[in-house]
């Protein structure tokens, strides 16, 4: 107990001494500065030029992905920002564009073909072949049944009005062209896009 008491007295003394020394301006703080700021997160990522998927300002964007395309690495998009060379947006983005990363990696993205049968309360995962075979079969049945080759006046009209389609608004012109070809070759006329809403 005596020892303890002396021990703690010495400690207190040291504290006082340190206090006095500190007050006189001695002290150390240099070590803390050796650490670094956050590393630059785009170092060694792959930069890909793209166009924002939202409005028709069509801002140029730079997509940064991890993975350099080597055989054993799969690219993951880690960051998206504005393309400073683009004459319209000049590197800027709006709050939607600046958050594009979160729509690419949205937890509610569809990853597999899903099918909901009549009366079911939810979807189940199916194969692409199942889905496309079934869609094509349903379409052909409907087309063969309801295709109008000639109207009442006898004019050739070759139209199919009982299956319709809405085309996307963010798909490419190439997608659009293929879609047009496919839909019209079927004779589809109930065919529109999102221009109005």
């Amino acid at each position, binding site marked *: 107990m*005596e020892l303890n008491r002396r021990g703690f007295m010495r400690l207190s003394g040291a504290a006082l001494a340190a*206090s006095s020394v500190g007050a006189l301006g001695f002290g150390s703080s240099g070590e803390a500065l050796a650490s670094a700021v956050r590393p630059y997160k785009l170092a060694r990522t792959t930069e890909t030029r793209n166009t924002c998927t939202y409005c028709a300002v069509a801002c140029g964007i730079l997509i940064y992905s991890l993975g350099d395309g080597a055989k054993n690495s799969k690219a993951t998009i880690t960051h998206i920002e504005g393309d400073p060379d683009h004459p319209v947006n000049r590197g800027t983005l709006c709050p939607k564009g600046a958050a594009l990363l979160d729509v690419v990696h949205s937890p509610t993205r569809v990853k597999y073909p899903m099918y909901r049968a009549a009366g079911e309360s939810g979807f189940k995962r199916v194969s692409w072949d199942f889905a496309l075979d079934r869609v094509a079969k349903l379409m052909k049945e409907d087309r063969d049944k309801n295709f109008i080759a000639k109207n009442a006046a006898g004019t050739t009209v070759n139209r199919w009005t009982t299956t319709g389609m809405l085309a996307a608004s963010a798909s490419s012109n190439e997608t659009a062209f293929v879609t047009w070809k496919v839909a019209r070759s079927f004779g589809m006329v109930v065919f529109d896009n999102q221009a109005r809403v």
Partner: protein
Amino acid sequence: MKTPPGSVSRYTTAARINHWITAACLILLALSGMALFHPSLFFLTGLFGGGAYTRAIHPWFGSVLLVSFGILFIRFVRFNLWNSDDNRWMGKIGRVLANDEENVPEVGRYNAGQKLVFWGMTLLILALFGSGIVIWDVYFAKYTLIGQKRIAAVVHSLAAVGIIGIWIVHVYAALWIKGTISAMMRGSVSAGWSWRHHRKWLRETAGRR
């Protein structure tokens, strides 16, 4: 521990444990507090496992201290009430410091200096705890405004300096007045020590035998 012959029992075992828990808390608080008070003492955070641990544990020491000191307070408050002897004793403080106690009025269990330490500690602990809660951000940040926190931080550090000062006096007095430490270590003091420093208390103790 039994009181050896020729000694006077001054503190029960419970009281001593109570005191030393309080004392330990105060010291840990002082060390951890000083570590965050002045950059040159930041190295003391090493004692507690680094700055973040020091910051985290300091208020818990304080909470323990509050409880422990609270019990101590209940235990001793009745002996620390101020009376006319204390005024007289204070009048002779010069003689006390000069080790010339013969001409100092007799005092009971505690002299005025000890009572001042007691009340000083009490008030400052309350101030420290009150201000400490306000700046204990982990749990209580949302209950106060920044302006209030700033006041609390200043009050806390002023009070801390005050309490450390009192503590120094308290410890020094124990070292200076030989025979004192055994009161808190063994629970008893010698009859001579009692005669010399707390004559009234000695007589009262004897009277109760």
